[in-house]
């Protein structure tokens, strides 16, 4: 095997022993031990909040463990900073992009190098070398902000391996990729593996763990609750392996999650499929219609061009697309947060194009934003006030502009009970609640009292599986009662599971609509539109 000179010799092992890390109020990692072997893909599996990210940031030198030790090839080491991690050959591709959008690809790659002057030529040849290794072609001189998502990820991997790498950590790399981009990622991974690199692959999707991993470690609640060695992995069938992993992931909650089958669905064990009993909604009256809607915005994410679609009563209309392709713009023109430059929006035949947030809110057009902490709620205000945030100044909660506290508290208590929001009291600051409960606050605020159309943007992003299930149930209930939902998501599984139809947005336009008829090729058709719509995507 022709290992490139920058790569460490194979058969090395990085061992974590008894890693414990606590944050105020939560133990993120509790006595976790695992070995990462070169030339293997080690899957780290667990739902949100299981402690995967903390473990990674310890390996990356961003956090220090409270106790426990790390050794590389048997030598105990301290990884005190990201720089130290790099010196040990540990490269991390973070879940959120670490590229500086206003710098070029090459500048991004050179960032953090020593020496006085920029060595552009050397950097360009290193990039070429890595591109060959990854099987990608990347223009070194375009701005990082102009990269398509798949390419962006290739650049991130190149950056992680820039100074020579023995271990590559990929943190949830697939969550926003199209099916074909996932395939080419898998290809890159197996090339790197063949070069003798160790890879830690973090995911919350079972089928990816099985397909790409040589061995699996399962985390739950900060603890290591299960592992499958490479030997065991190869001795089990896919179903057996999945059942074993699921039992570890859910433990005694397996029954609560609705048994093995339902848990498997939640954990993305299989290709997602829509609910079996689909009703034909097209015969129902049109609830919301957009005709040629365009908006103006400074970035691609907030501008949309010539959007037209109609949604019927009781329908969930999914919007798929690569993150940042106009999803926020679409949500905002629907909610009234963004001015519409041309085109019309009508609700049950009545033109609402010119109405603002408050009047649309009153007419039943609601928006559950994806930015729960900084847009949807005010962290240092109470749960009660946050529940009424869109009704400030209205009777009976305010009289002559003055707050009527008993009325506010009664309404808050009612909503807290109805949506089972876990909060010490209505007066607790909303910022102290968990992500799932904050999301319930938002849903309680938007779904109640005369909601007709609800736009939900990445409604389950960052939630644990039980909360995901709850959110899905709430949305299903809402449409069952005749409501209608615009579901914007970057999780293809979620879209396929819930939507009646899926529109694909790319560069601010709806480039295609796929009937979610339960066919096996729905995901592929959606993916096809996602790529076709964007000029520089990978293949």
């Amino acid at each position, binding site marked *: 095997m022709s290992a490139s000179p920058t790569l460490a010799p194979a058969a090395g092992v990085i061992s974590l022993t008894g890693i414990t890390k606590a944050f105020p109020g939560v133990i993120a990692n509790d006595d976790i031990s695992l070995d990462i072997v070169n030339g293997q893909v080690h899957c780290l599996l667990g739902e949100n909040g299981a402690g995967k990210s903390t473990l990674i940031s310890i390996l990356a030198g961003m956090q220090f463990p409270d106790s426990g030790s790390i050794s590389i090839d048997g030598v105990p080491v301290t990884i005190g900073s990201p720089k130290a991690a790099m010196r040990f050959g540990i490269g991390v591709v973070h879940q959120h992009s*670490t590229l500086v959008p206003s710098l070029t690809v090459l500048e991004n790659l050179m960032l953090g190098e020593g020496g006085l002057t920029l060595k552009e030529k050397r950097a360009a040849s290193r990039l070429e070398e890595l591109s060959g290794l990854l099987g990608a072609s990347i223009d070194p001189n375009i701005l990082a902000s102009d990269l398509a998502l798949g390419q962006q990820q290739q650049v991130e991997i190149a950056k992680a391996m820039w100074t020579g790498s023995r271990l590559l950590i990929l943190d949830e790399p697939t969550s926003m990729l199209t099916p074909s981009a996932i395939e080419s990622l898998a290809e890159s991974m197996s090339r790197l593996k063949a070069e003798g690199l160790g890879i830690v692959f973090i995911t919350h999707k079972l089928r990816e763990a099985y397909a790409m991993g040589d061995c699996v470690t399962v985390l739950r609640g900060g603890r290591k609750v299960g592992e499958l060695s490479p030997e065991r992995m190869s001795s089990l069938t896919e179903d057996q392996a999945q059942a074993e992993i699921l039992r570890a992931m859910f433990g005694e909650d397996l029954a609560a999650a609705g048994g093995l089958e339902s848990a498997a669905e939640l954990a993305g064990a299989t290709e997602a499929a829509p609910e079996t009993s689909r009703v034909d909604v097209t015969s129902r009256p049109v609830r919301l219609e957009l005709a040629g809607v365009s908006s103006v915005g400074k970035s691609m994410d907030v501008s949309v061009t010539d959007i037209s679609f109609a949604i019927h009563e009781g329908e969930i209309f999914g919007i798929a697309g690569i993150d940042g392709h106009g999803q926020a713009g679409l949500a905002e023109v629907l909610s009234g947060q963004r001015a519409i430059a041309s085109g019309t929006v009508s609700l049950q035949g009545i033109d609402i194009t010119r109405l603002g947030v408050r009047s649309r809110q009153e007419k039943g057009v609601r928006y559950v934003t994806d930015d729960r902490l900084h847009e949807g709620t005010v962290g240092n205000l109470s749960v009660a006030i946050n529940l009424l945030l869109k009704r400030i100044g209205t009777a009976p909660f305010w009289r002559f502009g003055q707050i009527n506290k008993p009325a506010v508290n009664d309404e808050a208590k009612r909503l807290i009970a109805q949506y089972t929001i876990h909060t010490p009291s209505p007066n607790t600051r909303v910022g102290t609640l968990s992500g799932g409960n904050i999301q319930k606050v938002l849903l309680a605020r938007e779904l109640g009292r005369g909601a007709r159309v609800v736009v939900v943007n990445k409604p389950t992003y960052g939630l644990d599986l039980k909360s995901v299930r709850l959110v899905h149930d709430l949305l299903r209930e809402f449409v069952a009662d005749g409501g209608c939902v615009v579901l914007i998501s970057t999780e293809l599984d979620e879209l396929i599971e819930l939507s009646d139809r899926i529109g694909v947005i790319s560069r601010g336009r709806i480039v295609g609509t796929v009937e979610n008829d339960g066919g096996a090729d729905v995901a592929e058709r959606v993916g096809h539109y996602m790529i076709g719509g964007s000029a520089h995507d990978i293949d």
Partner: protein
Amino acid sequence: MTDLLTPTFITAFIIACLSGAVPLMLASIGETVGEQSGVLNLGIEGVMLMGAYFGYVVALGTHSTWLGMLGGLVAGAATSLVLLVLNVWLGLNQIVLGIAITAAGGGITTVLYDQIYAKTSPRIPTDNWKIPGLSDIPVVGGSVFSQPAMFWVSLLITVIVAWFLVKTNWGLSIRAAGQKPSSLDAAGGSVMRTRSQAVLLGGILSGLGGAYLSVLATSSFTPFMTNGLGYIAIVVTMLSRGKILRVVIVSLLYGLTIAVGTVLQLTSLDVPTDLITMLPYIVVMIVLLIFGRDVNNSPVLGAPYTRGAR
């Protein structure tokens, strides 16, 4: 008016223009470096005053304008340490600190000046350094090529800073720290160190700018002599968006308005002095009204960086 356009007059005009522009240019470059790294130094007015005062004191004491400039440099660096420690290291509110530095700079220099020099108001002897040969050329010789040596050093500093920002790893780190500090952190750089260096360099350059004003441009110190120049430097920085060449051009334009003001005073027209002092500000406001609209500062400008916080 034609009798005004004598060589003597044009010489005086160019001198007024250049000595008005250089202090602003130095301060604006300092502010640019800071802002590129993500730190907005609102206390630059106070830093300049400290530079001006201590430059003046040292120049008086040592009879050397060079040591005077050095004194201004040190004072500027020392004053910026407040921002460095409290904002960059501890993450305290930069606007409040900026107001504090401005107030402290004005207060300290005025109290000391009143205590020590107010009765005598000594002036610094000017050194008449000229570039041999070139300074004999008519008009430009008596103006451009008779500028103090520090003028040329300032130009050199400008070129060096511009080069550093664009061509070095350090400049790249500064730009990353100002655009997306988490990226610099993840790439193994140190946001805190990079920003500290930028703030210190900014303090040095602003201190030099202040000292240039007292030691070289006016040869004296008066309380609050910067008279808002620090704020203009912030505007220049905003408009230049990190491009040093633009800083130079806008600073020269400012020098031009100063020179025009001087000319207006020389004419027999009854132009209020206040109008002349207002002139650069009115120009700044008009420029902001026309070009300032799409000034898009970095989203992280002024936000302290904490690892792990989003």
